[in-house]
């Protein structure tokens, strides 16, 4: 055993984008809607070690989110391989649990779905609810939440069970300053407990604060991979 948390070897992800899904009339006539292949990742290779915190930067459409999703296994790689020590938890901005239910119920469902038993959930719920900092809004339905409030709740749920590998997709960008501080704190604790973080963000200050290493993606390829200061300096100069 080594201290590897994640190994990505020549990973490629190709989307097939069609103008629309093939409808029955297309299938009958034997023609498929015009398909366009998008090479979102074109062979990405890197290792992440246990306890490392890696920032991922790059312009829109450079494959950052695709890379995180492929790492969770939600997107299949078309070539190469992604191997992990344990299945990573993914935090995205758009993620919602159940809109119709209150924040508190969503926490409960999220914790139960992660395999905690009733007693553990009852025990953890107050502290997770507290951590979200949502106050009374925790008992309101999630459809009434702003994107920042969702992100808070989601971050609290996903980190409550301390997954070994945490993938964060801009989730912190929408929170306010107090929450930023709290979440940065929790990420520090997470890393202190040998947790691994991959953080996609356009907020370079945040990456400077939480990551010692940065991967710079451009058009699905790694441009640079190294210490935060060096890579960000090059990225900002570009």
């Amino acid at each position, binding site marked *: *055993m*080594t201290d*590897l948390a*994640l*190994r990505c070897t020549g990973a490629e*992800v190709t*989307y*097939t984008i069609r103008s629309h899904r093939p409808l029955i009339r297309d299938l009958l006539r034997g023609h498929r809607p015009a398909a366009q292949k998008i090479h979102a990742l074109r062979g990405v290779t890197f290792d992440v070690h246990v306890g490392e915190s890696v920032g991922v930067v790059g312009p829109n459409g450079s494959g950052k989110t695709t890379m995180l*999703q*492929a*790492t*969770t*296994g*939600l*997107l*299949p790689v078309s070539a190469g*391989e*992604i*191997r*992990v*020590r344990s*299945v*990573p*938890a*993914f*935090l*995205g901005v758009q*993620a*919602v*649990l*159940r*809109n119709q*239910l209150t924040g508190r*119920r969503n926490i*409960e*469902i*999220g914790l*139960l*779905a*992660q*395999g*905690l*038993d*009733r007693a553990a*959930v009852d025990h953890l719920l107050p502290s997770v609810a507290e951590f979200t900092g949502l106050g009374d809004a925790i008992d309101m339905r999630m459809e009434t939440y702003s994107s920042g409030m969702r992100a808070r709740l*989601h971050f609290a749920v*996903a980190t409550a069970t301390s997954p070994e590998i945490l993938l964060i997709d801009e989730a912190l960008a929408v929170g306010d300053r107090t929450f930023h501080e709290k979440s940065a704190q929790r990420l520090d604790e997470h890393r202190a407990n040998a947790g691994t973080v991959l953080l996609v963000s356009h907020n370079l200050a945040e990456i400077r604060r939480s990551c010692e290493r940065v991967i710079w993606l451009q058009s699905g390829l790694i441009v640079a991979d190294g210490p935060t200061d060096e890579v960000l300096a090059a990225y900002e100069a570009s």
Partner: protein
Amino acid sequence: MTTNAPLPQSYDGLFPVGRSTPLGEYLRELWVRRDYIVRVPLAELRSQNAHTLLGGIWLILNPLLQVGVYFLVFGVIMPIDRGVDSYLVFLTLGVFAFHYSQRVISDGARSVVSSMGLIRTLRFPRATLPLSNSVGQAVAFGPVFAVMLVVVLAHGNVPTVRWLLLPVLFGLQTLFSLGASLLTARFNHLYRDLENLLPFVFRLLFYVSGVLYSVDHYVDEALLRALFALNPMYVYVTAWRWVMVGGPATAVEGLAAVAWALVTLVVGFAVFRAGENTYGRTG
């Protein structure tokens, strides 16, 4: 340290993402989530009638009103002979037994597609979703069963030894419905068209399963009767009447009730699990 734990899958202790979980581990993961499977549907049942005046009373009022409508239409307005003695009892058992499976299967079809947020966020065995739907429907069947009991007893039927088979029958029908809902959940995720089609499939099944009339009364030929056993809904509807009020049934229906439950569950689970890694995918 020596343990009997299986060796890491490779020298670096990593495993490929998106690999399929071995059956044993998958079942264990489901077992770990038993609190989710029971607690979430119960809470949903409670919140279902949150915006009504009568609240939880609806769970029992709903089946009562249904029976009331049938009684009005078939007992008072057009009381014609349909080849059965007490038509209200006959109808009540048939309708509720049928609706139970219908609810499990059609709500189960939506169980995966309505939880995309959860699926894309958290890792858990996806069969948790149809399974917890099935548990919720089984619990909701409680008040319905109470109404069935009242109707049967009020009509002068007395409990017989056959009633001991009720848990077995309910269990078999639940397994069948769960299996079918695993199938519909997967295919509805693939093509949502299924969701639009299902109401019509059930409407058709409703008319060919002897819910409203006695198949026994109209179909004498043994071969034709055996053909009806190929329709699981007919099988369970008939079995309910046989168990509760001694309606006509043969060993064929009994065997079919067992066979449909086991085969559908195994096939449904296998088909659902084969799609495990596709649920929630964007590409």
